[in-house]
């Protein structure tokens, strides 16, 4: 399964063996130059440009969307102390954190079942995991509106068993947003975990059974630690895009469920306040990088770049 392999491989570039051939700089340079140049010009330079934009100030007496290059670091202070910005920022991390845990709770057993209990159907089941990707994710998110609508069967069942009050509903709500985030990134959680579970040597699990380990102890001491690289990759691949997402909050939430992505989009594209939007983007990126570093340090995998 190349997609599973690709996503599983995403996170562990440095661990590959050393390549056999030593070459002068010339050959690899010539091969890589166009692609790497593309990344430099359209990834690195834009990040620098974003940083410069975040320090701009409005042209005195200019029109909306006219800014001049200054080095006004007060933009950061002003934005971070404004609750229309820091509240959605915190909310983003809460929502995406919950969604990541839910995706792990759903995705790990699913990956485990595919890896160990699927027999001949394994490839078919893997196709079923990636099949949602074949439908535009915006349409799938809108489908959740229909599924969670007050007239839908889900609300009907929940109302009849009293979990939702007669007038209550599920959409739009924080619940719907978190559920949508969990849904949209679940395959990114499942595939890397599957990829690492698939590499677990079944003889190790048999050995733990032979040594009288309770199946659960065997899982806790043998299988789970061996699947950690997949868990790390999966949680990152879920948490990072979820924290920056604004489609779920826009389509499934209320204005009170606004995430930082919605703020960035709105500030950039509707208000045309480019410096503030750039500040927000930059802070989001910095927060995510910091969290990823702490997380990876804590979990202690050295497989990451």
């Amino acid at each position, binding site marked *: 399964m*190349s*997609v599973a*392999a*690709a996503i599983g491989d*995403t996170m562990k570039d440095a661990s590959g063996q*050393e*390549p*056999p*051939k030593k*070459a002068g*700089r010339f*050959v*690899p340079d010539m*091969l890589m130059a*166009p*692609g790497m140049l*593309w990344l430099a010009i*359209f*990834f690195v330079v*834009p*990040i620098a*440009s*974003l940083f*410069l*934009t975040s320090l701009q100030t409005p042209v005195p007496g200019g029109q909306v969307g006219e800014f001049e290059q200054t080095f006004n670091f007060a933009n950061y202070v002003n934005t971070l102390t404004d609750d229309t910005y820091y509240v959605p920022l915190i909310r983003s991390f809460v929502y995406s954190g919950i969604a990541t845990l839910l995706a792990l709770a*759903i995705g790990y*057993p*699913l990956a485990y*079942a595919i890896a160990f*209990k699927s027999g001949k159907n394994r*490839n078919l*089941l893997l*196709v079923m995991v990636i099949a*949602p990707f*074949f*439908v*535009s994710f*915006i*349409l*799938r*998110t809108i*489908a959740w509106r*229909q*599924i969670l609508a007050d007239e839908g069967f889900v609300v009907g069942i929940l109302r009849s068993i009293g979990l939702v009050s007669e007038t209550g509903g599920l959409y739009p709500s924080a619940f719907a947003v978190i559920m949508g985030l969990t*849904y949209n990134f*679940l*395959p990114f959680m499942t595939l890397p975990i599957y990829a690492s579970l698939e590499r677990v040597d079944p003889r190790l699990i048999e050995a733990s059974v032979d040594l009288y380990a309770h199946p659960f102890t065997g899982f806790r001491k043998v299988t789970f630690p061996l699947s950690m690289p997949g868990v790390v990759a999966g949680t990152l691949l879920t948490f*990072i895009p979820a924290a*920056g*997402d*604004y*489609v779920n909050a826009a389509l499934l939430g209320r204005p009170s469920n606004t995430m930082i*992505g919605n703020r960035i989009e709105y500030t*950039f594209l509707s208000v045309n306040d480019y410096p503030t*939007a*750039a500040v927000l*983007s930059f802070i*989001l990126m910095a927060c*995510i990088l910091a969290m990823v570093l702490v997380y990876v340090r804590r979990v202690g995998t050295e497989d990451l*770049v």
Partner: protein
Amino acid sequence: MSSATATKPPLGFRIRSWLGDNALRFYAVIAFIYLLLPVAYTFAFSFNNAGRTNLVWNSFTLDNWLNPCGAPQVCPSVVNSITVALIVTLVSTFLGTLIAFSLVRYRFRGRSTTNLLIFLPMATPEVVLGSSLLALFLNLFVPLGFSTVVIAHIMFCISFVVVTVKARLASLDPRLEQAAMDLYASEREAFRRITLPLVAPGIAAAGLLAFSLSFDDFIITNFNSGQFTTFPKFVYVSATRGIPAQANVIASAMFFIALAIVLLAQLSSRRRKAA
């Protein structure tokens, strides 16, 4: 009696593991329903006699399928998306494959920096990628449209291509190529007749991945497209007014085409293994 089962450990163990297995299967079935329910809804609502807003089930009709371009803007946006995705697939697969080859086959200084530069775009949220490119385009007064969308998509697809092709290349046995050269093939011949055919499935997979990433991208596109409309952007923008059922027709058709491609690829690889 619980004590009765406790005195027969093999049976108790078997019951428990049967329960464990089937609880897991049951759980997996629920997870699959969760994953596929929206797909089923999207498909079902492509047959809805919907009128303007396709949110509530009305009645069954085949009209949407017989006339997929019936709603304004649906087909032009699909054509835009396919055009962008084709260009992006060609360019990013070419550039990414070259990078993958040099990373796997050559040792050179700056390899870890290169790896980092490939990893970072995948680890950056799309809002940041989209807004930073927009900041660049705004600062340089580049007009937004078709070409800025293509540029942006190629940027984020390259990394995924590199990773996919690299995985395939790394699993190749280098001795195959050496054997060819021992048999007096030139380096170029060995590459063309041994390595390239063996890597081809990986390159094809990378191309398909790039196509689907580009075709389905919304966030980065939304920042950098100006007035240019792709299919996901069209769906998102019309979500407030109501999405025509034709959008569901297009999405369902794409779903079955993609599914057919993947299943055929699996069948052919199974046949190759059997042979």
